[in-house]
């Protein structure tokens, strides 16, 4: 049986006692080794979920359980070892004078022994392809490189969950690719649950499952394929539909008997090829 790592049980949250409810009765589960994308319009509550997950905020109603432990004031120090987070702005995430100091910082705070620290610095920088930059000053790095170091710093504390909250949003396309390749390779190797909050549809397509937020409620919890097949509804809640899904729709309109809901170019081309060679 798959091991449950995160559970939201009927969670509601608002900022302040008078404020509007920002999350409304949200329930979901995330499993060991699973990759879940969270999408939704700006203000739909995605970052609030991330902050609840590592105890920066606490829900007024409902419960959050991480690796069997309810998140509360007493448990948060344990829980922050289990949940690592990387945010949008690459320039706001550095504390160390060199890349290696930065990776060491989180471990020092958690009392990791020196020898173990040295080993983890080498391992995690290698995991994000930044092993040659150990002694570089962070401000000399490109945006994509900074975000990779931020990911290494989080991995160094060996969390069970890694959350990327729009971590690629401020990067150019090559920086974005660097991050997604890094993340995909780590996910393949390690026992890590991955939560990516993003507007990038290609990132979403790579996830195992998607949670779609709309105005503080969970609108859908499905595979990327199922989500992208609901083109009109997605547009209504302010989201985009991938090019392949639009093209598949237009092909059906034009009388081409597409059989599947393709998730990428390759799948659509295979489908077209089958139709083509059948005739």
């Amino acid at each position, binding site marked *: 049986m798959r091991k449950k790592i995160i559970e939201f049980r009927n969670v509601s949250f608002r900022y302040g006692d008078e404020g509007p409810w920002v999350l409304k009765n949200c329930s979901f589960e995330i499993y060991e080794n699973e990759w879940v994308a969270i999408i939704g319009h700006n203000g739909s509550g995605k970052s609030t979920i991330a902050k609840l997950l590592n105890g920066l905020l606490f829900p007024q109603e409902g419960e959050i359980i991480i690796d069997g432990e309810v998140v509360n004031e007493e448990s948060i120090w344990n829980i922050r070892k289990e949940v690592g987070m990387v945010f949008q702005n690459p320039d706001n995430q550095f504390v160390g004078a060199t890349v290696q100091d930065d990776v060491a910082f989180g471990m020092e705070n958690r009392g990791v022994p020196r020898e173990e620290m040295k080993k983890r610095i080498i391992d995690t920088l290698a995991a994000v392809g930044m092993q040659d930059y150990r002694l570089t000053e962070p401000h000399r790095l490109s945006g994509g490189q900074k975000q990779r170091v931020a990911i290494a710093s989080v991995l160094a504390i060996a969390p069970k969950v890694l959350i990327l909250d729009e971590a690629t949003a401020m990067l150019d396309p090559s920086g974005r690719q660097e991050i997604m390749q890094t993340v995909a390779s780590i996910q393949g190797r390690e026992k890590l649950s991955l939560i990516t909050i993003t507007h990038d549809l290609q990132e979403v397509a790579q996830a195992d499952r998607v949670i779609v937020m709309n105005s503080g409620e969970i609108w859908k919890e499905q595979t990327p394929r199922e989500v992208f097949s609901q083109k009109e509804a997605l547009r209504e809640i*302010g*989201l985009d539909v991938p090019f392949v899904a639009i*093209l598949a729709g*237009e092909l059906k309109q*034009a009388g081409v008997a597409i059989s599947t809901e393709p998730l990428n*170019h390759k799948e659509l081309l295979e489908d077209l090829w089958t139709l083509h060679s059948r005739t």
Partner: protein
Amino acid sequence: MDITFENVTYIYQQNTPFAHKAIDDLSFQIKSGSYVAIIGHTGSGKSTLIQHLNGLAIPTEGKVSIGSYHLSKEEKPKDMKELRSKVGVVFQYPEHQLFEETVAKDIAFGPQNFGVSEAEIQNRINEITSAVGLDESLLERSPFDLSGGQMRRVAIAGVLAVKPDVLVLDEPTAGLDPRGQKEIMDMFYKLHQDQGLTTILVTHSMEDALKYADHVLILNKGTKYMEGSPEEVFSQKEALQRVQLDVPEIVQFLDEFQERFGTSIPFKKQSVKELAEAIQQQIKGAEST
């Protein structure tokens, strides 16, 4: 206003050990009323280029002309302020520059600075809030109480309120959600058409460049790497990939289609619907043989 760069070189911190050539012998022309996309990866010189358009940077070598204003080592406009009233620049994350107590005051700041009368400013505020899709009820609110998308619109309204002839946009939709991005880009396009603006868009989005621009300029290491219509530029996939740039997704798809089917559907800025029909023809073509 026509814009011309003639052999422009720009060096940061010249005559110091840190001297850095950000623009290198760059020449191009932008016709008045056109919509130009400037593309290039980080560090290619895009932001430095656009700083020349309102005199924030003066060429180290060569000459920039914006209408009748000329910028070079030898020659600077007597009235830089006048140039800045003609060229409106929306910088990246423009909402970081909001500072007034109310939205209305923030929008009024630019035109006041350029000596526009209070009555005229009132007219413009009303006109522009609706053009950028801000509700009038927000005018007396603090800009800092608004959502990110609304703050972005306030900052843009402040630039538009000066009524520039040339609008320069440095990644204007970064960080917005898909609907916010589309609304802002459609708004700029409508302004471009209705007011006959010359629009210069710095973007990483090949899709936006394809959709809105009539001319594309690709920068690499401070030099002009490619230039032409979106069709011309984006059909050269290999050349773009050599400088780590993508092509629009439709071009990528057409390429993969050719690889799989051995026949090609040329890229000519067709809609997805037109593409679907072309594919249908190819498949049907096979049926009838």
